């Protein structure tokens, strides 16, 4: 939504402003704005319990709905990569009642900025982490919905991906609550907006594509898959991911774990080096993978590497053969003497 014309400034708070909850009387000091979405603004706030992220909106229904989601997700035992929910309340502003809630403030670098700063191999690694969490979320009956780099942060070291905006999280089987066109399969004409695992996995493919096209691009008259695969092939960085991206776009993964496994295999293979090509330092930072596994993957995914190994094999045989030949000649010479 465009703020300048949709009148979303209604809930703009200023730094140092003190907000007191109508029901629980907790006082929050607004430090600065963290972001502004379709349904409201998020601020960094300080209260007696410490720092928190405070989301406030004049749309009390939307706030209530997000609180419901956060509560139910927090209730489930297990590793959630989302923010922990703190509390919800109303704020009587001079312009009317605004609803807000507070959650854990997650420090970190936005997904795209992190990948840009630390190297493209991180795109794959963070995505593998994300897929594991998505699988967990899906198993609880929730679909993330509005999956995009703006909603993902790489937390502080040890770097791990976390998500920050619950606005799009939808119960499985319902229609997606909130989405962004570039990451939405409906926009590309590649499916509906029913909340199911494959909806999120489509967005994961688009997330990978987005790392190569930070400015994104629009649909054309061309068929959705054609356009997206063409863009993938055009990017040197994306080519190694093509099989996974394609299956994600076509909705052929039945769950996030399946996509994670295949992506992991790609990352362990030669494609990892391709992806990191031109970054000398990255080799050292590679996670330790057993050499044999890496060679296997190289043979599967890099026909170029396969050719090299075949030639080195021939060379080895020739060296061994000539060595034997020399020994034989020496033996013959010895005998004749």
């Amino acid at each position, binding site marked *: *939504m*465009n703020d300048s014309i949709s009148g979303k400034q209604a809930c703009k708070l200023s730094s140092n402003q003190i907000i007191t909850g109508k029901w629980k009387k907790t006082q929050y000091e607004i430090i600065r704005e963290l972001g502004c979405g379709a349904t409201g603004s998020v601020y960094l706030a300080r209260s007696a319990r410490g720092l928190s992220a405070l989301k406030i909106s004049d749309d009390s229904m939307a706030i209530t709905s997000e609180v419901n989601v956060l509560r139910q997700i927090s209730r489930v035992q297990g590793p959630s990569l989302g923010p922990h929910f703190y509390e919800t309340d109303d704020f009587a502003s001079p312009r009317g009642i605004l609803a807000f809630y507070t959650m854990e403030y997650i420090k970190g670098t936005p997904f795209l900025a992190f990948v840009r700063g630390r190297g493209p191999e991180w795109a794959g690694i963070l995505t593998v982490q994300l897929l594991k969490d998505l699988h967990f979320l899906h198993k609880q009956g929730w679909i993330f919905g509005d999956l995009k780099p703006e909603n993902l942060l790489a937390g502080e070291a040890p770097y791990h991906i976390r998500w920050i905006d619950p606005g799009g999280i939808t119960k499985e089987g319902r*229609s997606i609550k909130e989405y962004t066109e570039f990451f939405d399969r*409906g926009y590309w004409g590649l499916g*509906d907006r029913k909340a199911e695992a494959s909806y999120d996995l489509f967005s994961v493919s688009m997330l990978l594509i987005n790392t190569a096209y930070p400015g994104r691009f629009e649909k054309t008259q061309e068929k959705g898959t054609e356009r997206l695969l063409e863009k993938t092939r055009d990017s040197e960085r994306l080519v190694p991911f093509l099989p996974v991206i394609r299956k994600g776009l076509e909705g052929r993964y039945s769950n996030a774990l399946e996509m994670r496994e295949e992506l992991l295999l790609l990352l362990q293979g030669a494609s990892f080096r391709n992806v990191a090509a031109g970054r000398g330092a990255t080799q050292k930072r590679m996670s330790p993978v057993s050499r044999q596994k890496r060679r296997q993957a190289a043979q599967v995914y890099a026909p170029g590497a396969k050719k090299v190994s075949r030639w080195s094999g021939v060379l080895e045989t020739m060296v061994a053969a000539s060595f034997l030949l020399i020994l034989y000649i020496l033996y013959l010479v010895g005998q004749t003497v």
Partner: protein
Amino acid sequence: MSRGTLRQVLLITDGYSNAGEDPVAIAALAKEEGLSVNVIGIVEEEEMSERGIEEIRDIAASGGGVSQIVYAKQLSQTVQMVTKKAMSQTIYGVVNRELQQILGSDKELEDLAPEKRGQLMEVVEDLGETMDLDIVILVDTSASMKNKLPMVQEALIDLSVSLRSRNGTNNFTLYSFPGKRSDTDKLISWTTSFETLSGAFKKIAVSGVTPTGPAIQEAIRIFRKRAKKKGPGEDERFDLRETGM
């Protein structure tokens, strides 16, 4: 068992009305009929007058609906957002009135503690997902809209994609205003999906007048006619007792 039907009018326009009755008044009438009137104003680089924007807000306010002003490019996402928000708002409003009757007080949902509100919101969302939805779509086809119509068409197909993902059934009908000889022209009669939309706007003759008020009036007539066809009982605004509240 029927859970009842939500009835919406979706008005897409780019400016101030200049013919017929006051649209704000007709929207108030529509609300009395149990409809909600939602308005989307399309602008191209700040071209809309204050007066036009004000009218759009006023129509939605008196029609019990939602309004939004957008650039043509953002139309698709806005149309589906406004429609869904309007559905929740209508259900929320009914739940609110029902509560007031039960509690016998003049308390609003906003006076409920946020915890209680959360439980109600779940019911609202459940209903929004499962209730049937009838939408009369009114598209302004005055001269200034001409180059925006392809985007309107795309947005309506997109709306159909979104609504198809719900569990309840959806029915749409599409009208343009002004029409060739009358205030409105029917472009598409009641249908469950908009995949057949292509070409619907081709036969439109653009004109200088914008009879927004008469168009909303036509929408009221369309819903009345539909209610008669469906027979009594079916057209009642949904009854919360049926939904287990």
